């Protein structure tokens, strides 16, 4: 006997319809939802380029083969990876496919009257009957009205229904999630995020060239940069005397927008950025810039000014490089700056407090080729000394000068620098609105019960009720209803 199974011809339209139905089924949505949770896990355990590029670099250094293999699967960019995007895009398509038909259906049923009272009420739950007094229907009508049930009255019976907010809330919750996703996409397409390091006293004008680093959304237009300029007037950092931990950072700026003709004083703190429409300016980090003057052997100034150094610990011991490419031969200094100097046996010069109470600049002077013309990008805080020779070491107090055969360097003093992050985020308000609507919808859907109550009055009064999803609490409501009906006038 042949066991062949006839497979019905689906055709391309049928196949599409089948696929769509599968995708929008609750089971698929649930699997996709769990999958989204599971897919988020690797990104929290493996360092990500967007959060921690330095640790990603270490990963590549320590196990290059494994890292290369992991990179093939976007494990260092999980949240922007094609497979992660595929999951959430499928989930949202599934969600839309599920929610839209339900919205239409709900819209119709919300305008319809409740279905007529069933014939056999005694088959329903919460069924009770007693002999009629005569005014029960009237009382029932008043009670339903005060409780805002929708009612259908017919042939001595009332069918009442309540709790549509459950489905309404549920639908709003899901639609709001779509709004959140749209807000996030809008931000990443049209948004902008940039960093700028500024010494106290410096001025920043909001053009693309002013930034140290800049990330644009794919559709961001440079002309959309908001017009403003700011000058760093004063930066105050307060530290705990015992623990050195920071207690307050306050940045005062002179801020001018539009045509820059008028400026005002504004304050930026860690939890209160300077906001201007969808653009916000955040205070993200701070440090010290030693101010130096470098002279050649004839005493001519080869370089003068502040050089930002990068903090290494909570007491702001900072490292940096001072490069003088215009000197002949080229001169460079690898240095560290300690705001409050102390000597430690093991580590040499250390800082014991983040405020500049006793600052020192420790320098190693190098002569040779700085390697700046090789085309390989270099960090401003580090120096490639492979083609250079060291000509001296020195620890300087402010005002002191270190003289070496090829010239001299004077440690004039220091400035504080602040790192400002400037963010243009046009989608965040949509995301926020989505979040608020989602919570309200959730509350409505989780705390509303949908139920029907019927009453028929003939020789006897019959009442019955039905709770959807077997939600508890209808028994209490029925008892109240019956008490009202039986109660006096």
């Amino acid at each position, binding site marked *: 006997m042949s066991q062949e199974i006839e497979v019905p011809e689906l055709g391309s339209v049928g196949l599409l319809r089948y696929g769509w139905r599968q995708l929008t089924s*609750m*089971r698929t*949505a*649930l699997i996709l*939802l*769990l999958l*989204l*949770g599971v897919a*988020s*896990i690797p*990104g*929290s355990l493996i*360092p*990500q380029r*967007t*959060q*921690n590029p330095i*640790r990603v670099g270490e990963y590549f250094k320590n196990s290059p083969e494994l890292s290369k293999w992991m990179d093939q699967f976007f494990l260092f960019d*999980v*949240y922007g990876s094609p497979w992660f995007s595929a999951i959430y895009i499928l989930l949202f398509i599934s969600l839309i496919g599920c929610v839209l038909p339900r919205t239409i259906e709900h819209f119709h049923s919300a305008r319809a009257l409740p279905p007529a009272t069933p014939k056999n009420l005694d088959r329903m739950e919460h069924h009770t009957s007693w002999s009629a007094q005569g005014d029960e229907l009237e009382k029932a009508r008043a009670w339903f009205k005060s409780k805002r049930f929708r009612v259908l009255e017919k042939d001595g019976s009332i069918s009442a229904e309540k709790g549509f907010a459950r489905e309404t809330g549920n639908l709003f919750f899901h639609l709001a999630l779509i709004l959140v996703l749209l807000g*996030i996409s809008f931000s990443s397409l049209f948004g902008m*995020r940039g960093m700028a390091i500024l010494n106290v006293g410096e001025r920043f004008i909001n053009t693309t060239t002013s930034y140290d680093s800049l990330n644009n959304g794919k559709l961001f237009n440079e002309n959309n940069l908001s017009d403003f300029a700011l000058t760093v007037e004063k930066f105050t950092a307060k530290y*705990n005397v015992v*623990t050195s*931990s*920071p*207690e*307050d*950072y306050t940045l005062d700026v002179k801020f001018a927008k539009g045509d820059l003709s008028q400026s005002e004083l504004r304050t930026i*703190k*860690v*939890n*209160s*950025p300077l906001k201007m429409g969808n653009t*916000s300016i*955040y205070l*993200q980090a701070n440090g010290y810039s030693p101010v130096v003057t470098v002279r050649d052997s004839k005493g001519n100034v080869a370089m003068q000014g502040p050089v930002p150094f990068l903090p290494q610990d909570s007491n702001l011991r900072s490292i940096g490089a001072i490069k003088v490419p215009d000197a002949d031969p080229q001169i460079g200094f690898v240095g560290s700056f300690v705001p409050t100097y102390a000597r430690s046996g093991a580590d040499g010069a250390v800082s014991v407090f983040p405020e500049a109470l006793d600052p020192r600049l420790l320098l190693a002077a190098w002569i040779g080729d700085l390697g700046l013309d090789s085309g390989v990008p270099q960090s401003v805080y580090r120096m490639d000394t492979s083609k250079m020779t060291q000509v001296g070491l020195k620890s300087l107090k402010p005002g002191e000068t270190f003289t070496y055969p090829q010239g001299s360097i004077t440690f004039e003093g220091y400035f504080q620098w602040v790192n400002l*992050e400037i*963010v243009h*985020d046009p989608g*965040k308000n949509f*995301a*926020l609105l989505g*979040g*608020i609507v*989602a*919570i309200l919808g*959730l*509350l409505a859907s*989780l705390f509303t019960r949908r139920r029907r109550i019927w009453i028929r009055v003939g020789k006897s009064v019959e009442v019955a009720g039905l709770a959807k*999803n077997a939600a508890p609490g209808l028994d209490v409501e029925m008892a109240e209803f019956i008490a009202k009906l039986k109660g006096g006038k």
Partner: protein
Amino acid sequence: MSRTWAYLSNYLVYSSMALYTLSFFAHAVETAWAVRVTTTDSKKNLDYKRTEKVARIATAMMILGFVLLFAGVVARGLSAGRVPWGNMYEFSITGALAFSGAYLVALRKHDLRWLGLLVSIAVLLTLGTAVAVLYRPSAPLVPALKSTWLVIHVSAAIISGGVFLLANAIAAAYLYLDAMESRGERTAWAKRLPSLEDLDQLSYRLVAFVFPLWTFAVIAGAIWAESAWGRYWGWDPKETWAFITWVAYAAYLHARVTVGWRGRKAAWLCLFAGSTFLFNYVYVNIWGTGKHTYSGL
């Protein structure tokens, strides 16, 4: 002044531990007696009245412990002149407070006293770890934490956590009793516990009740992150795991309401979701990197 408050807070926390210990012993005695009463079936010296009395003592001790711990948490806040949610020691004592608080509130409406043994052990372990391992001297907040959102975001997260863990304990009890019943009858002491169906319903209702609050905690965190870090969502490990917890509970609610999961499958899913929350608290705080790690835990 602030020193005095800090010491007072420590004494209050220690005293509350003593009371939770007493509560634990009383619950243990109650459970043990209940076993013997029903198995020996002789009423020589043991009767239900005494069991009932011990059970009442156990709950009373727990309430006193809760009050002292509450005072301890408040004093800790006063010592630093801020809300007491700046490091993991403070999160832990507040978390223990929220967990036993959730139990005590639920106790008013449901017969949950059988769970008291588990709750008192969990609270004692949390407080013990906090005092022995996580303790840090009281100190002011770093600038990033100085925000009203600290109060809103952290309180919502801690309360949600307390209720999630309570739902977890009930789901675990469900699975345990379910396994027991599938082997045969419940043992004597377990007969006093609620029916499987009641446990199933209760853990669902706890989750459904607190899921909106957790959603709010995540959104409040996003709003705060927007003003403190310049972005409302950055897949920081803590954010990621909060999201995973949210997704897991959302899946749980859908599985129950829409697909109709009940009983064993639902309880496992509930346990999974709750463990993502615990993982977030323990792993990300201690070993994780990212923006949610402050000043040595």
